[in-house]
């Protein structure tokens, strides 16, 4: 049985092109049904009569804000709390104690890049708060702050609200964490003020350099790189590495790696998915942007 499509075939191709150009993500060729369901829902939310009306507006008016919302809806990921749990275990047992020690006296600043609906950012906040409560000697002395960024859209709004359905909170979140960090509100569960006080959520275009947010001791972007076209992967990694403090860490998914493109980052031994920024001024000095050239200068000290 054929799929029900409400748009002309050329529009699906145009949407795929838009997603690649705007976000660097290549949607598969058999994604018409996916496009249909995601965007029909967005059209309804934004008060359009139907999907065709939204698409007409998008392509006739050249409304860039609408384009970002369309792409954001197409990129929404089905996230769960503590997904790829081995990464969180390595983070709490190996990496966070190192960060706390190397940057003693500082408030640990963390960037959650591409936070979508927020489950990963909150999982990170829960991990850090649990360490503060149970192993204060291993926790950052001056606390932590998480900046979570993504394209504007429904997912980011949900992340900011910290509101999840009873299905959401039962996927990956231990019940003890649910009781400790969430409160019931009607049929939903809402993140506690205690966690929220460590976090802020901001809109960002993920292909532009996030240096406006400052420098970070840990940048987290897990299990998302593979969605991007190779050129976009390079662009993201090249812009993420310089926002890491020297000696800071990049956290990818445990199955992800940078292969030959290191961007001034060295893999952390026995911690799959973790990379540490080495002491080099390579990024600031390499105007060619070629990641394959050797570092030109070593940082002082």
């Amino acid at each position: 049985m054929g799929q029900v499509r409400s748009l002309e075939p050329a529009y699906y191709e145009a949407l795929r092109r838009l997603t690649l150009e705007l976000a660097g993500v290549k949607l598969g060729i058999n994604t018409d049904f996916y496009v249909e369901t995601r965007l029909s829902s967005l059209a309804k939310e934004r008060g359009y009569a139907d999907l065709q009306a939204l698409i007409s507006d998008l392509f006739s008016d050249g409304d860039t804000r609408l384009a970002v919302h369309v792409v954001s809806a197409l990129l929404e990921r089905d996230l769960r709390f503590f997904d790829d749990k081995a990464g969180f275990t390595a983070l709490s047992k190996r990496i966070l104690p190192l960060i706390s020690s190397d940057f003693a006296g500082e408030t640990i600043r963390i960037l959650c890049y591409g936070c979508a609906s927020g489950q990963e950012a909150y999982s990170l906040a829960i991990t850090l708060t649990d360490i503060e409560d149970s192993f204060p000697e291993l926790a950052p002395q001056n606390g932590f702050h998480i900046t979570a960024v993504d394209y504007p859209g429904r997912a980011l709004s949900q992340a900011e609200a910290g509101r999840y359905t009873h299905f959401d909170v039962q996927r990956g979140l231990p019940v003890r964490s649910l009781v400790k960090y969430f409160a019931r509100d009607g049929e939903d569960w809402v993140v506690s003020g205690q966690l929220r006080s460590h976090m802020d959520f901001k809109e960002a275009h993920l292909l532009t350099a996030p240096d406006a947010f400052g420098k970070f001791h840990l940048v987290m972007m897990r299990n998302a790189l593979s969605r991007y076209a190779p050129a976009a992967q390079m662009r993201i990694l090249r812009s993420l590495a310089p926002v890491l403090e020297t000696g800071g860490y990049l956290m990818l998914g445990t199955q992800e790696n940078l292969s030959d493109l290191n961007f001034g980052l060295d893999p952390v031994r026995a911690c799959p998915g973790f990379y540490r920024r080495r002491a080099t001024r390579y990024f600031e000095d390499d105007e060619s942007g070629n990641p394959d050239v050797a570092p030109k200068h070593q940082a002082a000290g």
Partner: protein
Amino acid sequence: MKSCLIVDDSKMVRRVAGRILKDLQFSTGEAENGSEAMALCKSAMPDAILLDWNMPVMDGLTFLKGLREMPGGQNPVVVFCTAERSVERISEALDAGADEYVMKPFDSDIIESKFIEAGLI
């Protein structure tokens, strides 16, 4: 293969949960209430118990408290599976010795996630 006793007064819930658990490679047994479950645990202690709260004859919380006092009753991993969703009820279940907690309605993804969380998978 690990064993799981499904304790619920709803035949439908027992059937659905049974199918999910078989897919997760568990052998399953069934009881309609806490009293039946207690008798089954006395003869053979399962590795896991998926436990409803509100049941006739003996409710889930009473069963759990009794189970934890039985010889060997500390061993089974107990996952509550109930329509009770308040923080107070969940805390009461954890205080009585529950290891994890599923709020109905559930699906296979939730059961799998909770069993992983409880160390059963």
